[in-house]
């Protein structure tokens, strides 16, 4: 035991663990300082958490696309954040048109449904097209080739959106049914956040049903397990992969609507950071694992939402909220270094 420990232990590990320990001490110290100073009330903390949950739900929806594609192709689809962005634009143009007609005020539920349908269609179409044009010819290529292609697709889509829709930030119209808050005991929950919880829960349940209970889901799981064997069993591998992209796109489209409802804006660069964070979430939960993506997304959302106030503030760092994204990326880096299998990780493919 000791001999094995000595053999596998090198200076790099030592440095790593020292860094990890340092960060841990800083986080604990910062949290203690903040909590003992009593700067924020309980209600404020609860609000942070609820906001984090809503944001985490959006991350989870995007993360599902990353994780499913990774599970089936072993490839990081860098462009997935752009599918989300396209969906958000679809939602924006639908709401704008509906608001202009006054339909949005009269039939809010139907309007939101319509937004969802349009956004999902747009995202799914972009996802399937990208797979067909850019990824399918590369099934046998060396590993870096699809990743670089995905980066190319990502830039292409981003700047296509910029060219098509203009470079300005589009502000979503106010949806009256979703503005304002509901008082629930001591805390006030935004209606838009409630909508996010409902939609995310519905999407996750239906995804679970599709993957676990239908023939399509079985095909997806079998292709993820072993492409060649699945093909021998009569599964159309190419079609199943396209379906995976379709489902991922649909989830990303739903996330686009939710993002529009909560943050009320759409822009051509909006896909990059949420995409990267959703990837973080997928890795955090254990990439390739669907339940992991959900857990990872929600944890990341909460950590990111309470982190700046909880430990950065306590460490005496000025303007801690500017470093919100830095927290997410630090989580990403730490997870990849210390536990690349993630929270719910199964075995990690040796190739990664």
């Amino acid at each position, binding site marked *: 035991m000791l001999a094995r420990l000595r053999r596998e232990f090198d200076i790099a590990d030592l440095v790593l663990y020292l860094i990890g320990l340092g960060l841990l001490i800083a986080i604990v110290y910062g949290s203690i300082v903040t909590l003992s100073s009593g700067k924020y009330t309980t209600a404020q903390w609860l609000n942070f958490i609820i906001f984090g949950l809503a944001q985490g739900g959006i991350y989870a929806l995007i993360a599902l696309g990353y994780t499913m594609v990774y599970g089936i192709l072993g490839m990081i689809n860098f462009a997935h954040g752009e599918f989300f962005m396209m969906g958000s634009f679809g939602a924006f143009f639908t709401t704008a048109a509906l608001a202009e007609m006054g339909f949005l005020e009269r039939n809010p539920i139907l309007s939101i449904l319509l937004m969802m349908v349009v956004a999902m269609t747009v995202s799914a179409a972009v996802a399937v097209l990208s797979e067909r044009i850019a990824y399918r010819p590369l099934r046998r290529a*060396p590993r870096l080739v699809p990743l670089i292609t995905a980066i190319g697709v990502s830039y292409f889509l981003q700047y296509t959106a910029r*060219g098509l829709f203009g470079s300005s930030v589009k502000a979503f119209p106010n949806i009256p049914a979703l503005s304002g808050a509901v008082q629930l005991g001591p805390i006030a929950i935004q209606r838009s956040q409630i909508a996010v919880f409902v939609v995310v829960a519905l999407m996750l349940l239906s995804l679970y049903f599709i993957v676990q209970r239908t023939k399509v889901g079985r095909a997806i799981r079998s292709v993820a397990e072993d492409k060649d064997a699945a093909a021998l069993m009569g599964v159309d591998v190419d079609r199943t992969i396209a379906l995976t992209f379709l489902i991922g796109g649909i989830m990303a489209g739903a996330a686009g609507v939710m993002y529009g409802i909560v943050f009320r804006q759409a822009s051509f660069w909006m896909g990059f950071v949420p995409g990267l964070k959703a990837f973080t979430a997928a890795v955090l939960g254990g990439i390739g694992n669907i339940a992991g993506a959900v857990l990872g997304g929600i944890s990341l959302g909460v950590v990111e939402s309470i982190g700046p106030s909880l430990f950065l503030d306590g460490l005496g760092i000025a303007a801690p909220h*500017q470093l919100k994204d830095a927290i997410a990326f630090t989580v990403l880096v730490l997870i990849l*270094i210390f536990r690349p299998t993630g929270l719910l990780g199964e075995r990690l493919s040796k190739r990664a």
Partner: protein
Amino acid sequence: MKSDRPFTLVDAAKLGLYGGISAILISLVGMTAAFAKTAIIADLLTMAQVLIYGLAFMVGFVVVGRAARGSRGLALPAGALASAVTMLSLSLLALLIGAVNLRTIFTNATAELANLILPGETSGLAGALLLTGAGAAVGLVAWLLTFVPTRIRNGLFGGIAAVVLFGLMQDVLVPILPKSVDDFLFESKGLTWVGAVVVFVLFFILSYLYAMRSQVRISRLDKLPPQQRQIARFAFTLVALIILTLLPRILGPFLSEVANQVGFYIIMALGLNVVVGFAGMLDLGYVAFYAIGAYTMAVLTTPELPIMREILPQLTFWEALPFAVGAALLAGILLGIPVLKTRGDYLAIITLGFGEIIRLLVLSDALKPFLGGAQGITGVGRPKIDDFTATNPQQFYYLILVAIVVAWFITSRLKSSRLGRSWMAIREDEDVAAAMSINLVGYKLLAFATGATLAGLSGALFASKLGSMVPASFNVLVSINVLAVLIVGGMGSLPGAVVGAIVLIGLPELLREFNEFRWWVYGAVLVFMMLNKPEGLWPEATRVRELHEAEAEHTHVDDDASPTAPATA
């Protein structure tokens, strides 16, 4: 993988439709409208027309080629049909713009665009029919060209490309060329009629001759005895160096500025080449080291930032340079240790995460007293020798040139060393490399640190040249840019890095109309290169073999397939 089903007119129409969708996308993204302002030949031809008709021609040309493989009789109708369908789709867009208001969604779908698409003064249905007919005519031309001998055809393409380039680069060329030549070639906007013809004929002859001689020349150089070959190579290097030394005088201030930009990217690309090309680690956070080099230089030499000045004395450029490079090296090692525990895709994402963390830290108010926050830092020190201070791009050029030569020397020596071969072994297969007793972490760390050092050098020069800097210069786009340079040039190849930087960084600066669409085109180019030419424009021989191995296994193509031929792009 292609089926043996004969090529039919339906296939031709399908390809034409794809071409049409591309044309519509190009128009809606705004390229057509932007390029309509760029005249190639005065009052006759705009870049937008070159783009649209060129696309239709390409579709026709490809279709003619494919159809002719089946039956020769099908080639003409198929080509004409494909080009016509491309133009028809585009004219449908124009008609749609006229009928419905698309502007609420597509900002570029203006009536002006519809007028641009339809030829001449026509509008409505008549214009659409005319455009479709023009498409068919373009297809006919594509068909006719298949009867022309290859060498003449290449000459024609070369001539046309030269005319387009001359037209595009008018602003750049006019200050360089003598006044009499200018007046002869150019009007206020675009080439003159006569000028276009002269350029065309000149380059037609040149590319005709080139196609004839290039085969001979290469084989002749190979046949020389080794000693003479070395002399030839030495002479070539000498001539190149002399030209490079004189370059800023020829180029003038604006082009020297562009050359500087290209230079920064060449240094970075040579560095990233060690990481990605040699050792096979995809580093997407490379900009972090560039930023560290630049910030170290800025913080050490600026008279601002009182807090830093209390701790550290203000240094000159030359004193700060080793620190800047050293800081990047140190950062490379420090970030490298945790990062290198991961592999492949994870390594790419983790480096991307690091790059973003560095950028966010630099931007934040928390570190503003030390690093200047969002406003950045001004008053960065300039290189000074005795009483001479380099300030303008023409003077900086030499400094950058020296840095490039140093970077080139280091990386080329590393490549053929034992270290370089170990890196390549790691790139090919980590497990086998480890079995060959290559210390994976150590060697990877060395690659990472070498790359970081060169990025730091580039960053330090960049900060000093600009004299001031803002954190916005260090976003992830820089990393992607450098990576694109490597990919387009050819992964692992040193001349490739230079070619890639000239093509991707230099050309867009020269063709300012392109600048707005730079990233869009980049994305498309990355995808296109990965699908069709993953080895790049100036590849390494081994890389070509490796990437085309799979195809060769499947199709058993002859070994003289195109990838090894000199690239023309």
